[in-house]
């Protein structure tokens, strides 16, 4: 019960942030904002505000599942543009995540070298 209240409160905060964040653009009644002009020139279907809100909430949830603190996840989601949200939402868990792996690669190279040496193609280790 309390957990769901907290979740609800989180959603309200998110909606509030969203409204505040988009307020300057809302206030410009007849002005076409530059990002909208670019999207319209490219004839992109931009997400409706409601759909974008839901997509943001979804990405936020995925970030939390991937180990991000909920408050930090809010901040990270709010720094993404609508098109980035649309890009991340369906495949956040499969997009390339650069970590390291230098050791893995060194391992692979080492195994190849040993095989080559055993097979007699190279003579690297004879020099030692």
């Amino acid at each position, binding site marked *: 019960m309390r957990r769901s209240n907290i979740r609800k409160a989180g959603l309200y905060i998110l909606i509030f942030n969203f409204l505040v*964040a988009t307020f*300057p653009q809302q206030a*410009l*009644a*007849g*002005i*076409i*904002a*530059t*990002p*909208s*002009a*670019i999207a*319209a*020139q490219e*004839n992109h279907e931009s997400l409706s505000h409601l759909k974008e809100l839901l997509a943001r909430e979804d990405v936020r949830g995925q*970030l939390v*599942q*991937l*180990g*991000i*603190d909920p408050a*930090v996840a809010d*901040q*990270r989601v*709010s*720094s*993404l*543009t*609508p098109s*980035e949200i649309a*890009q*991340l939402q369906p495949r*956040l*868990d499969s*997009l*390339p*995540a*650069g*970590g*390291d*792996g*230098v050791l*893995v*690669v060194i391992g*692979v*190279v080492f195994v*190849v070298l040993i*095989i*080559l040496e055993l*097979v*007699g*193609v190279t003579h690297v280790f004879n020099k030692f």
Partner: protein
Amino acid sequence: MRLGLLAAVLAPALVLGGCASVSPVLAPRLPDDARRTAVDLDATPFNPQTVHQCGPAALATVLQASGVEVSPADLVSRVYLPERQGSLQTELVAATRSYARLPYVIGPGLDTLLAELRAGHPVLVLQNLGFSFNRVWHYAVVVGYLPDDDVVILRSGVTRRLVMPAGRFLRTWRLAGYWGLVVLRPGELPATPSATAYLKAAADLESIGQSRAAALAYGAAAARWPSQPTAWLGLGNIHYQAGNVPAAEHNYRQAVRVDPGFLPGWNNLAEVLAERGCFDTAITTLDGALAQPDATDALRTLLLQTRREILARRPAAYAADAPACGQSHPGEYPAGNE
């Protein structure tokens, strides 16, 4: 017999590893006058990575090189995903914006990357150090190249100066889709910019509230591509939001002067005309734009909406526009700024 088979299996692995490449990789991708010149951005900072955190380390390196005071530890909470043990490209781009820097994803191809290095921009790259079937994603920062040795120089992992054969680097970069990011100070242009990509990046800066940085980027774009209406529109919108309506009108006029088919420019010009009481001129401006044959549906809808709103705002007792409406905003902008 079995040995022969093994060698046959391993030979391609050798070639893939770049060990067998003999023809130079860098020289053919360099302009004639730069074919022998080494580039080494040795002043680029170095942040050795901790486990799995090459994303924060590489991003800190390029941000610091662009004058931002930030440490990898500051960036962990912004770009690191614990369960994925890595960082996403999109989040590196987004985090760059929050430090008021313009993230520009360079066009694919080694020649583009080399051109950025010659312009003094270290390039954050995504590499796949594994294979196309077993991927090992890694971020590093390219800081130079030596054409004579056919190598590139990287800040990578825990190595401050990793010298890698260009062929091997190219393979790891190709397997990661040739993704490279330069971090630009506001108003700075990349070495080989595409107007569309740069303006999109500037608009993205604006959309997360970095108006100052975005204004400088639009200004640089307008200077570099004066015939790009979006750059003028961007400048106009920034002035409009800051309450400088005459400057906004000046830039909107510039946008439609360089491209009379640019509907957002006509729309915003009509809006500022209506705001200074020139309702008839505003409506004729919109009607002229709506009569254009190649207007997209999305834009047509927006312009019709603006038209309705302007008509609704026009006072009932409105007779006709004042004569001054036929001209640009009176006393609007310093002359010679076009």
